[in-house]
């Protein structure tokens, strides 16, 4: 068993030309490629083979990339406990990876592998062919050591798709490279985002702020008193959507079927009971609880989500970008719990709730600067990537 890859593409890629020519991209087995085993890390999809290519896969190939395989993932991409995201980059068996970002997985996996990790704006990349869990929060994230590759990938995959009507009717932004003038960019620092950080990480975060100041950006303290509610809202809405999404895994046409059932109802219960892992099962239980017993709490969460969105828009009038801590990829114990998982992603989950783009920048190779996260308003993806490139350039002695 390959420790990193779940499936390797047996075909050797042939030259195609295009922006992504020669780029080896690893995906996850929840992204459909016709004929590939596509189990999304779950026994509920064991032996399931995708019927069609996901739109992202089609577009990557059209741009000349070679999709080299899929890496092991946590069940339905939720959390990082069983995920090998970033490992193929570390091994140099891939140049970039697509990683589902439900609550910050692409950014935290990037932090684990010390590469760049990017979560695009919600609605910018087609979800056709992606086996999801939290449709209103998740999107396809990108990992690479080079921001240039992430920009090229985003340019290749972003935009309207006649197979995904859920993409808003918006013009696709211009992804061509642009220059950043630090004197014209204000970066907001959310005081409340640092509240729950351990002392050591608070110090690292202050070092990141110093780096930005030295680069010539003006920093501005901004306030978002309800920052801690991003996790709460994500946990309620996310679990409800997950409960609905996982409803189709009934073992009838694919996936694990537990023997010994006396009727179809029994078969559903036994098979679902045996298929889902402990972390996902508690998430689905929680979602079903809010669906069946506490719908009012779910409605409250939706209202709070709208308010948080408005709060973020207010911050966008005070600062062009936001800087946030990286998140905490070391926190999880042997047995992952929901509470522990949400603690890990406390700094990243905001972008999934609001749908805005967020970028993780890794520490400098000489360890002079720690890693941190940048975010911008929805559809500011190109500018945000340009910011990242500007900062990495300075680290390498450029201007």
């Amino acid at each position, binding site marked *: 068993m390959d420790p990193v890859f779940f499936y390797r593409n047996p075909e050797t890629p042939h030259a195609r030309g295009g922006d992504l020519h020669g780029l080896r991209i690893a995906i996850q087995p929840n992204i*459909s490629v016709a004929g590939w085993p*596509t189990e*999304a890390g779950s026994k509920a*999809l064991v032996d*399931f083979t*995708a*019927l*069609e290519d*996901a739109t992202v896969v089609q577009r990557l190939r059209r741009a000349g990339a070679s999709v080299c395989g899929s890496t092991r993932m946590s069940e339905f991409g939720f959390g990082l406990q069983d995920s090998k995201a970033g490992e193929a980059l570390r091994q140099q068996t891939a140049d970039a990876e697509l990683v589902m970002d439900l609550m910050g997985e692409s950014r935290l996996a990037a932090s684990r592998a010390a590469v760049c990790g990017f979560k695009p704006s919600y609605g910018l990349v087609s*979800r*056709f*062919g*992606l*086996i999801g869990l939290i*449709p*209103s929060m998740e999107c396809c994230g990108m990992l690479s050591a080079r921001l240039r590759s992430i920009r090229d990938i985003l340019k290749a995959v972003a935009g309207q798709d006649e*197979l*995904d*009507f*859920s993409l*808003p009717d918006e013009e696709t932004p211009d992804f061509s490279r642009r220059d950043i003038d630090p004197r014209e960019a204000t970066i907001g620092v959310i005081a409340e985002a640092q509240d729950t950080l351990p002392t050591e990480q608070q110090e690292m975060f202050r070092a990141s702020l110093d780096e930005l100041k030295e680069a010539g950006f003006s920093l501005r303290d901004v306030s978002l008193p309800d920052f801690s509610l991003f996790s709460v809202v994500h946990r309620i809405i996310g679990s*409800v*959507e997950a*409960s*609905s999404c*996982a*409803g*189709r895994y*009934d073992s*009838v*046409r694919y996936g694990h079927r537990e023997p010994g059932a006396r009727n*179809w*109802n029994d078969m*559903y219960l036994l098979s679902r009971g045996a298929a889902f892992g402990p972390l996902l099962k508690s998430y689905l239980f929680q979602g079903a609880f809010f*669906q*069946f017993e506490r*719908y009012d709490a*779910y409605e409250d969460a*939706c209202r709070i989500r709208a308010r948080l969105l408005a709060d973020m828009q207010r911050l966008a009038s005070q600062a062009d970008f936001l800087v946030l801590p990286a998140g905490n990829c070391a926190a999880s114990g042997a047995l992952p719990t929901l509470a522990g998982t949400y603690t890990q992603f406390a700094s990243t989950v905001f972008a999934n709730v609001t749908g805005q783009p967020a970028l993780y920048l890794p520490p400098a190779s000489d360890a002079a600067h720690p890693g941190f996260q940048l975010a911008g308003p929805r559809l500011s993806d190109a500018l945000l990537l340009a910011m990242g490139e500007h900062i990495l350039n300075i680290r390498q002695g450029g201007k």
Partner: protein
Amino acid sequence: MEFEAVIGLEIHVELNCATKMFCDCPNRPGDEPNVNTCPICLWFPGAIPRFSQEALEKASLLCLGLGAELQPRSAFDQKVYYYPDLPKGYQLSQAHLPLSRGGAIDIVDEEGNPKTIRIHHIHMEEDVARLVHEMEGRLPISLVDFNRAGVPLVEIVTEPDFRAPHEAMEFLRALRTQVRSVGSSECSMENGTMRVDANISIRPRGTTQMSTKVEVKNMNSIRHVGDAIAYEIGRQSAAVQAGEAVVLHTRLWDPDRKATLPMRAKFEGPCVPDPAVPAIELSPDWIEELRAHLPEMPAAKAERFAAQYALTADEARSLSSDPEVAGYFEALIEQGTAPRTAAHWLTTQLVPAVRDRRQELGSSPVTPARLAALLRMLAQDEINANAAREVLVQLFDSSEAPEAIVSARGFRQVSDPTALDSLIDKVLEAQPAAVADVQSGRGKAMGFLIGQVMQASGGKANPKVIRELLTRKLDATS
């Protein structure tokens, strides 16, 4: 104690769209099982629903046709339940933000008084797969047909305005007529394109309390709806008289036993907003453009027919309820047929004849132009009514012009007095008793004599001329 019933209806109408609601699979009910399926309507992992524009237009037209107010914003929810007819564990339906609110249909109650039945709201939803229960030897098995999964439906939910089975039946007939007029569905209960659930409760007459209701399903004709409601009112009244409580549950109508039988506790699953189907936002411009496509509705058409063509209210109503009949009627008038003649021949002759032959009016060989030519000959006394009826029968089987059929088969009526004189003389000679009756003022015998002359002419004589000649001869001899 005397009880009164409080009844509300929930009517599912299958829209006659070319495709399903969230994918491009054909919506063809009669096909072999499981041929019209794809990863979307089978809800395979990674599939994303694509809401059909045609379903939105047909559903919205239906709402406008029922006088409902289209909502500027509506959205789909997930109705969560686990059952083999629903492979994704939830049904896409509009539980919180329906497509339209309000609307009404006017009916006539049992006493003949006009009554308005209000519509609470109309929402869209997808149909689920069809389960077929069979026996394999001695083993009961259930088969699933996904052709129906994802077929576009609307659900029309009325206010609890009905008090009697008759009113529910009248409402359903009027609803069917109106929906057919806008062209969104055939609304056939027999074919399952219209399915009706009735919510029935009873209360002491004169009170306004809302009692526990019972839901009744599985009626496959409008008459069964009436029968089931009548049965359920009787059953609940007897139960309450006996001191039993009515509990909320669902019952099935059994047409053989003519009774409702308990099925299950009424299930109300949760409904959460669906994150995959975008919310539907209708602009005032879009709605007005759609309204411009709305055909004239039956009630308005009946009023216009009565005024414009001097028809009775009954004639106008029977001509306007079926858009095909109404269109045929106006085509006849355009061809020069007098409105009363057109109305009479259409409703008493052509429509029954088409129905007997299991044809559709629109595709029948008796086109408005051919029937109008026939009726023109009748109006100009070239043929009599008997002959016209016979020619009409021939028009179904022959492509010849009516004029040609009349000439070839000798249907042209005889109006020449000299040709009729000798026939009349013979009849008068053979029927002295009738002659005496007429001369003593008994009018009925005149009709008998005309009939005799007509028979002697082989049905070709002009009855008006016969009457004139007879009157003249009998006056002269008396």
